[in-house]
């Protein structure tokens, strides 16, 4: 059996667990704990402290694992471990919470430094009225013109699939350019 993995990262409460849940064929193994900080508790009650774990079986010989990183900075020691050997990564950002964009930038740069693998940015909650537009997010996140930023609703399987596919296309493009 061959296994490959992708990592879904992003700030606290960006929607990483939901993103994985949308496409995983197994119930996502989420290691959640009650949020300790009052400020963070306003946003949501529990958070991922180790990782989320989802699976997509391709055939009897190949399985794709999806790992979600904990969003809170105090668990960033897990990030390097999770990034080891990944095919690529997705940075999920809540389009309605600009206060998390700086952290998203930081996470993105950290992962870029860990592993020179392809990545895409997914702008979650694009269905909400107060969601930032993609072009504005591109500037706020300081993404170059080459970096793919994609609209996303983490609970919508079709949109999550589109994000995963774009990452896979990016990997193929890299493989072609490294020929």
């Amino acid at each position, binding site marked *: 059996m*061959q*296994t*490959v993995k992708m990592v879904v990262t992003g700030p606290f409460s960006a929607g990483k667990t939901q993103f994985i849940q949308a*496409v995983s064929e197994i119930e996502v193994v989420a290691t959640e704990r009650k949020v300790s900080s009052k400020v963070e508790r306003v946003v949501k009650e529990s958070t991922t402290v180790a990782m989320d774990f989802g699976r*997509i*079986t*391709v*055939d009897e010989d*190949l399985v*794709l694992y999806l790992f979600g990183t904990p969003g809170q900075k105090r668990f960033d020691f897990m990030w390097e471990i999770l990034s*080891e*050997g*990944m*095919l690529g990564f997705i940075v999920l950002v809540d389009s309605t919470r600009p206060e998390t964009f*700086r*952290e998203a*930038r*930081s996470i993105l*740069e*950290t992962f*870029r*430094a860990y*592993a*020179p*693998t*392809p990545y895409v940015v997914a702008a979650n909650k694009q269905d909400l009225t107060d969601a930032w537009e993609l072009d504005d997010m591109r500037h706020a996140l*300081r993404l*170059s*013109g080459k970096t793919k930023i994609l609209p996303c609703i983490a609970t919508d*399987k079709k949109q999550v*699939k589109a994000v*995963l*596919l774009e990452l*896979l*296309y990016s*990997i*193929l493009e*890299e*493989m072609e*350019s*490294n*020929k």
Partner: protein
Amino acid sequence: MALRGNLRDFTVTQLLNLINLARKTGTLIVDGPSEQAQVSFREGKLAYARIGQEDNGLAAILHKANKLNANQYRAISERAGKMTDKELGLLLINAGYVTQEDILLNLQIYFADVMRRLFPWVEGLFRFENEILPPDDRINVKLDLENLIIEGSRQLREWEQLQDEIPSLDLALKFTDHPMTHVNLSVEEWRVVKYIDPKNTMKQIASAAKLNDMEIRRIIYGLIQAGLVEMMRPTTAPLQLNPKMFPTQDKQEQRTLINKLIGRIQRL
């Protein structure tokens, strides 16, 4: 029990706070990234400080503070010989070159500046030696630590913010496609700008420009905010797909694997 450890776990500001609260007497020795600092305290007050091999004699400090001109400084350096700072201070006061207040004030300014240069040190071993007292031949001051602690805390917050913005110095920089044309750069910024090249990591630029982690981050953050540069992977380390990514090393099999994944996700 010896007070010793690593600055990663206990910052310079936290150490000052502890020394202040415990009214400690002794010398804090910090082995930083490239040099050693020695800071002495008496009953929780800063008495003396030295960083690296820098000349921190009274004549040098007064010369830097423009209290002694170049000729006076040269003459003292040649003739003072083995005279201690205390003896030299008395001589200068009696000769009417400086007052006692001038000497104490400029020593305080210099020692506080040494402390400020220590705040950005985030790596290095430290130890507090109760037995090592401020040197007898040097003029000691009695500087309260409270203001330095507040200043250090501010710098620490800035350091945390800069680390958030630029978490790794392993990336390179390049000029943006449409940089602003009328940007006034400081000397330090020019020192960094001249090394900007997609081949050079920020770490290499810092080393070439002799800047510490905080200084390089502060300058680069300013350049990014001004829309002048952006971070990128160094071109000397092109995007190499990590062999560990794939369960097979055969390129054709790797492509087949990715196509299989694409097909499977499309069918979900």
